[in-house]
């Protein structure tokens, strides 16, 4: 049978459109390969001995649901809890649970299981289980409890015999601590089965190795170090970047001991040329910042000065007759930390401050990355204050109060914020429907894998 030209064209068009539709339509199946620097030894979301990184939070959310979630606008959304009420005073919260939700081991999600999980993560809370609800009572009013509950560390987990299971879209298929984690899609997930059949996470991989594996097609998602973002993008790679989710800061090991020390810390903060470091070391990624919270969270971060002022730094320094020599520690696993620390030491030397870099743990101050705990400003600031053992900010919904609280923390001079940094990933071309919140939260349940080009 011979087809005419028009007929042939019509057939070809139909075939092409069918093929194209097949490529654009989500496909079930396949395994997503992810590489990450972190090397977890525990999957328990409440295990605070594990590093609190964006990557860990994302892995945790694959296995464990929270009662509520926070959307891209910072609004709390139902998850395992369908609704909640708060009593006047914001101390007593009652959460009504979804029905029919099961843990990955098949057991049902009960209020008792939820309460037990929350008690492990928050021993200071008074959590009680009702018939179909869970009640949380705080000793003080806590208007941001839902924001706290949306954190990955509050994922609902069932702990038995050293194993933890959750209600998330993926369950643990294989677990080699600190090396490899294999997750399989939960068929009966209450939110609907994920497109992917499985996710294999290789842990403890350097960003360099991750990129090599991405190039070789051995992984689909690779972390990209801040300073490599531009280069990877320039190389034509598909790079996704979050908003600023961590602050790089100098954190002093102890509180101020004297006014002179305060002047020296002020001189050090003024001596740092953040812009040079950002443009050269960080390759233009990130924002110089004098604030703890990123501007997209607080809205006022820009008011804190960031410019180098060597003249004033020297003045402050010269007002201190006998300045000690400080040691500046840095994370040897962080590729740029050494260069930034040495640059800060050079800047400090220009101001007359003796600062020696060190890899020792007992340094006078450390170059540290503080991860944004939550998109909720209060929760994020409170987490920083707790980590530095500083007074916690007041509970208020006022931006002015938040600004004053953050300023108060900064005035303790325990830390000198340097940069607000995003988190970035390079994706292989076959990763489809990638969706990421501003705080870097993945939604792998929506991701599917297309054919490799």
């Amino acid at each position, binding site marked *: 049978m011979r087809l005419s030209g028009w007929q042939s064209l019509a057939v070809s068009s139909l075939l092409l459109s069918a093929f194209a539709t097949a490529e654009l339509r989500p496909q079930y199946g396949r395994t997503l390969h992810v590489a990450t620097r972190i090397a977890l030894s525990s999957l328990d979301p409440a295990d605070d001995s594990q590093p609190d990184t964006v990557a860990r939070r994302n892995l945790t959310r694959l296995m464990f649901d929270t009662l509520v979630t926070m959307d891209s606008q910072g609004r709390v959304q139902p998850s395992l809890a369908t609704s909640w009420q708060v009593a006047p005073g914001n101390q007593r919260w009652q959460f009504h649970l979804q029905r029919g939700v099961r843990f990955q081991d098949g057991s049902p999600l009960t209020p008792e299981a939820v309460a037990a999980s929350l008690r492990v993560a928050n021993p200071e809370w008074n959590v009680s289980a009702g018939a179909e609800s869970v009640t949380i009572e705080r000793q003080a009013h806590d208007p941001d409890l839902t924001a706290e509950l949306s954190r990955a560390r509050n994922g609902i987990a069932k702990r038995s015999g050293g194993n933890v299971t959750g209600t998330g879209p993926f369950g643990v298929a294989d677990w080699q601590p600190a090396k490899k984690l294999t997750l399989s899609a939960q068929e009966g997930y209450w939110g609907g089965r994920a497109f992917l059949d499985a996710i294999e996470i290789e842990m403890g991989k350097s960003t360099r190795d991750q990129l090599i594996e991405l190039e070789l097609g051995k992984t689909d998602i690779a972390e990209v170090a801040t300073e490599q973002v531009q280069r990877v993008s320039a190389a034509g790679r598909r790079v996704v970047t979050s908003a600023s989710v961590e602050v790089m800061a100098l954190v002093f090991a102890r509180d101020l001991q004297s006014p002179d020390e305060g002047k020296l810390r002020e001189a050090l903060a003024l001596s740092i040329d953040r812009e*040079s470091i950002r*443009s*050269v*070391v960080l*390759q*233009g990624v990130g924002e110089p910042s004098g604030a703890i919270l990123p501007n997209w969270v607080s809205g006022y971060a820009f008011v804190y000065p960031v410019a180098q002022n060597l003249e004033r730094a020297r003045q402050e320094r010269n007002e201190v007759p006998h300045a000690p020599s400080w040691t500046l520690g840095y994370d040897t696993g962080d590729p740029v930390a050494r*260069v*930034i*620390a*040495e*640059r800060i*030491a*050079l800047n400090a030397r220009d101001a007359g401050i003796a600062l*020696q*870099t060190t890899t020792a743990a007992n340094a006078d101050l450390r170059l540290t990355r503080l991860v944004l705990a939550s998109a909720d400003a209060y929760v994020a600031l409170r987490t920083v204050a707790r980590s530095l053992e500083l007074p916690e900010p007041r509970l208020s919904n006022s931006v002015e109060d938040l600004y004053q609280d953050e300023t108060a923390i900064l005035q303790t001079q325990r830390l000198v914020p340097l940069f607000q940094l995003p988190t970035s990933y390079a994706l292989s071309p076959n990763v489809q429907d990638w969706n990421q919140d501003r705080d870097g939260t993945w939604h792998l349940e929506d991701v599917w894998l297309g054919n490799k080009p």
Partner: protein
Amino acid sequence: MSFRRKLLLVFALTVFLSVAAVAWIVSFVTRRAFERSNEEQTAALVSQFQREFQRHADEVVHRVEAITHSETTTHMALALNRGSRESSGYLNEAGPIAESHQLDFLEFVDSPGLIVSSAQSPARFGYPENSLPNLPSLTSKSAFLKREELSDGSALGLFAVRAARVGEQPLYVVGGQRLDRNFLAGLELPAGMRAMLYQSAGTAFSPQLLIDDSGTVKQADKLSGLIVQVEREGHETTTLMHWSDNPADDETIHAIPLNGPDDKALGILLIGSSRRPYVELKRRIQSAALLVGGAGILLAILLSSWAAARVTRPIEQLAEAARSVAAGNLHTEVEIPSKDEVGDLADAFNRMTRELLEQKERLIQTERVAAWRELARRLAHELKNPLFPLQLTVENLIRAREHSPEMFEEIFRESSVTLLAEINNLKQIIARFSEFSKMPQPQLQRVQMNDVVQGVARLFQAQLESRNGGAIVYQLELEEGLEPVDADPELLHRALSNLVLNAVDAMPQGGTLTLRTKADLDLVRIEVGDTGAGLTPEECERLFTPYYTSKQHGTGLGLAIVQSVISDHGGTIGVRSQPGRGTRFVIELPRNLDRLRTPIQNDSAVVTPRR
């Protein structure tokens, strides 16, 4: 010390000194040779270091030039010439390039002198390269020493500068290699030598800045003086370093200042040469010298003993013969061992003894004649004295008979008395001579000498007490528990009586007579002392000579008889006397006649009579 021992000592000393001298000379020559060798090795090492230094310098220049002409550098220079001041893209460029070109230091510096990228200090981007203020002048020069400031201190390196002139604005490439332990390890050193490097920090000496190919030098503080001196004076210096009490650990250190482009000392190269080989060689020489010396001395002793025996045996025979002659045996002759000087001496000795024998015979003849003459003289004298009164008395009787018959009877009576007295005197004289000629042999028995002495004392006690003139005090000092001696008590009694009589005669004005006995080893000593006028040495010398007497009335036989008695008992008698201080006779008798003693010594005039 005997002649043989002296001879042995001389031989041994000669050998020992010879060996010691040879050992010292060998040791001295060895030390000089070692020091010369050490100096040559040090000079060779310095030369090698300079060659290595130059080779490294050429290598650094070559590598820096390769980087300068590389595509990366050209792109970088082009970008900078296009006006891009953005160095963000080059932050990590220098590191991999330096690594690929095996450079420890690498910096890209733009035309204003700002660091674009640094391998050793990535954080210094945008900072001026202050350590090289005049970069253009260095672009055509060879490599040079420079101290590079790093975040963890400073390091000494060999640097070169070249310029990439792509456009109007040159891009300077500053590369270098670190002078560190790897550099030192690359030096091919002879065994026993090592190289150390001190990086001058411009401050006080710091032990951490002194390294060798294994790391920080131990006991680096000991080298601080040398390093400070070289830093101050700026020229090469050599010193001997004592690391411990063991000389084998000593090291000769040669310090060479390493100067930068401005001739300022940036470092000091120290070349250590162990003295262990020399010390061990010296010890071996000393051991060998000791061994050879010891063996030589032993051999010398054996040889010299043999030689000395050969030399000294004839002399010892001569000495023995001389002693025999001295003992009175003039018939002694020695064998003539050879026809050398010792043989001549032996021949002369034999001739001497022969002549002495002949002279003795002649002397005996002469003395015999003299003795007879003396005897005749004494007899004549002794007999003449009583004969003269006899003659006068007889002549007086004859004259009285002729001229005074009336008085003849009275004269006859008186003369008869005189004649009888003189005849009795003659008989006494004859009896004494007879007694001297008839000295009996002693009849030995065990005798308590104190009993004999006390017997003599008792005999004379009454006489001394009734004596006219000055009184004589008896003083008996007898040692108690004196052991008996073999002696004839009668003869000893007679001899002691003679001595006591002599002592009494020596004290006409009175005095003290001392009789003393004392045990002395195998002897019994008896002393008879007076406090009389004493004797001259000449008198002492002749005192025991027969017929010699210092008294007006005496035959001179008393002490001769005493000496004869004592001699027959195997003893000796001596006299100790000084004029005005009395006289003391000392008799020494052996307790046992089998053992004879030599005469006693004296602090004054001592006479031992010849037997």
